[in-house]
């Protein structure tokens, strides 16, 4: 992954979960870095040295024949302009409104060539109110999407629950998104390195440490949104994988919210980090595996009505 690309962190979370508190915490921490922050409405934000831009969440449907492909044109415009400055920002943070579906934000970074060239989607960070999350998930379609899309969850307001209740909440979150990294916090206080500039790090580690027993946990009540992960220990044939994933996302992309994988292709020394949002897919070589990691390839799908045997057969058929 090119280090000259500016990392973009997408900050989502339901109304009142503590997004603004976390954002203020990030901006006021003495990290010596400079961020550009896109907010949907000016709040009490405003830290010297950082640039805060007021953006309207303007979503449009692209004409690329992909039915679920909506992107944020305001991000293309505003980030496109900010990225023309050289060496001005260490990172960009995009805050979304509480009710927003994270898909268009994520898809924007697949669609626009200029953004792909100059920036990389670092992580989707979802702030969750531990106290209210169960009710929110029962009531809201968008809340389920925000959990499903997250690379990192900041589980906020943990001081309001006991350990057993927190574990129950985490189990429910993992039932939707098995590969997410969960950090507990109070009042948005969290070590910044857990949230910003994660690179491929979270994905690789989350997939490595994701226990297989989660595959048996198919019982969810979040509108059928669940995670399924698969692994094969032999190297994959790159062409066969691309053909399979391409056809799969084309056919089932509306239901597959996210797909992520760390893959070993036959004949390649480096591992390939793959990610997809609905029908849009992308990937990058992220360096060789450590010796003890072997040649295992892992992939996780987060979506609705996933067909486990079909996905498993498909992934296994990509072996070289």
């Amino acid at each position, binding site marked *: 992954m090119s280090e000259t690309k500016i990392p973009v962190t997408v900050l989502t979370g339901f109304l009142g979960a503590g997004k603004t508190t976390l954002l203020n915490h990030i901006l006021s921490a003495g990290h010596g870095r400079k961020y550009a922050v896109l907010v949907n409405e000016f709040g009490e934000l405003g830290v010297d040295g950082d*640039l805060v*831009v*007021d953006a*309207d969440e*303007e979503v*449009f*449907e*692209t*004409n*690329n024949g992909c039915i679920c492909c909506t*992107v944020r*044109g*305001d991000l*293309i*415009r*505003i980030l496109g*302009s*900010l990225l*023309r*400055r*050289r060496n001005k920002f260490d990172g960009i943070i995009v805050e979304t409104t509480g009710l927003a579906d994270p898909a268009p934000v994520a898809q924007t970074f697949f*669609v*626009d*060539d*200029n953004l792909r060239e100059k920036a990389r989607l670092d992580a989707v960070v979802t702030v969750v109110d531990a106290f209210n999350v169960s009710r929110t998930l029962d009531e809201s379609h968008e809340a389920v999407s925000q959990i499903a899309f997250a690379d990192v969850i900041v589980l906020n307001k943990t001081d309001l629950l006991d350990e057993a209740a927190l574990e129950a909440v985490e189990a429910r979150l993992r039932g939707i998104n098995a590969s997410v990294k969960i950090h507990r916090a109070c009042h948005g206080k969290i070590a910044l390195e857990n949230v910003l500039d994660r690179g491929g790090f979270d994905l690789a580690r989350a997939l490595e440490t994701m226990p297989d027993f989660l595959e048996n946990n198919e019982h969810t009540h979040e509108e059928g949104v669940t995670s399924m992960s698969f692994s094969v220990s032999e190297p994959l044939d790159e062409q066969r994988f691309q053909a399979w994933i391409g056809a799969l996302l084309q056919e089932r992309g509306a239901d597959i919210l996210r797909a992520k994988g760390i893959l070993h292709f036959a004949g390649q020394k480096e591992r390939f980090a793959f990610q997809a949002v609905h029908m849009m897919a992308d990937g990058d070589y992220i360096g060789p595996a450590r010796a003890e990691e072997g040649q295992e390839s892992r992939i996780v799908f987060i979506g609705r009505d996933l067909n486990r045997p079909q996905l498993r057969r498909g992934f296994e058929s990509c072996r070289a």
Partner: protein
Amino acid sequence: MSAVAGEMTELLATRGAEKVFGSAVTAASCARDGQTFALGTVDGDIVLVPVAGLKHPETWTRVEAHDGAVLCLAPDTGKEGFLTGGEDNRLCRIGPDGTVTELHKGRRWVECVASTPGHIAFSAGKQLEIRDSSGETTLKTLEHPSTVTGIVFDTKGKRVAASHYNGVSVWFVQARVDTVRPLEWKGSHTAIAIHPGGEAIVTAMQENDLHGWRLSDGHNMRMSGYPRRVSSLSFTRNGRWLATSGADAIVLWPFFGGGPMGKPPTELARLPGVFCSAVCAHPKSDIIAAGFEDGSVLLAETGSERVLPICLGKRGRVSTLCFSPFGGMMVFGTEDGCVAAIDLSASD
């Protein structure tokens, strides 16, 4: 040609001058009297190039106009000076001597500005504001369904058109009651041009396409096949051709003989593998100025294959080009912060 490219003296060196300011150049314009050029940068500066000092960069001045990038630039309504919009949510007037006067400050970036001798149009977010020539009086504020991405007046200054999501809105500047003529096409329209004879409006789209509407009957025209997104489009003086960036050549669509529908575009000045990043049609002759992503700039004749190189590479992606009103002089700017000016009429 006898010399090897590297040994050739560039026309820019003999007929013009250049200076590296370091901040990426975003826009260029020439005042109506043709006496001053202005270029805007991502760091909010306006570089003023007086025609009298065209070959003497020590006479070029830098003015701090905006906090954040200069997003748009147009000649002022009068003979001298310019109008600029920026990331600091301001619209400013820049005098030929570099004085900066704030005309508007709001809550959104001022992304587009256009002018005629009688009117100023600028946009901030979804609003397009029309002011009188003084810039002090707001005549009307026109609302659009999404953020305005481009503004053009027609040649007579009677109509103004704004591009946005899902099409273009055409308004009459002087209408007592504002009724929009919507030109609809689904998707994100990111730039706009109007045929000098008022026959068509064309937009660049997010998906490496152009879309056009014939104004007589609203007929849709699609112009596709670009390898890259089109960022720059310019009609030739008589409206016969529409020149665009977006390929490794200047792409020209014919607007005559029934075109562009069903007609293939013509390519000029192909530099294999090097993409054209900015175009500007000459105001008086059948010539297109084109800038490329490696910093090359050239002039190409529409009626022939003739190409005149101005400079070759090594200056960063050319982001903007602009002729003087009679076409005797030209400036361009690049993303590496190079500003260059050339006198095309001079004879040695």
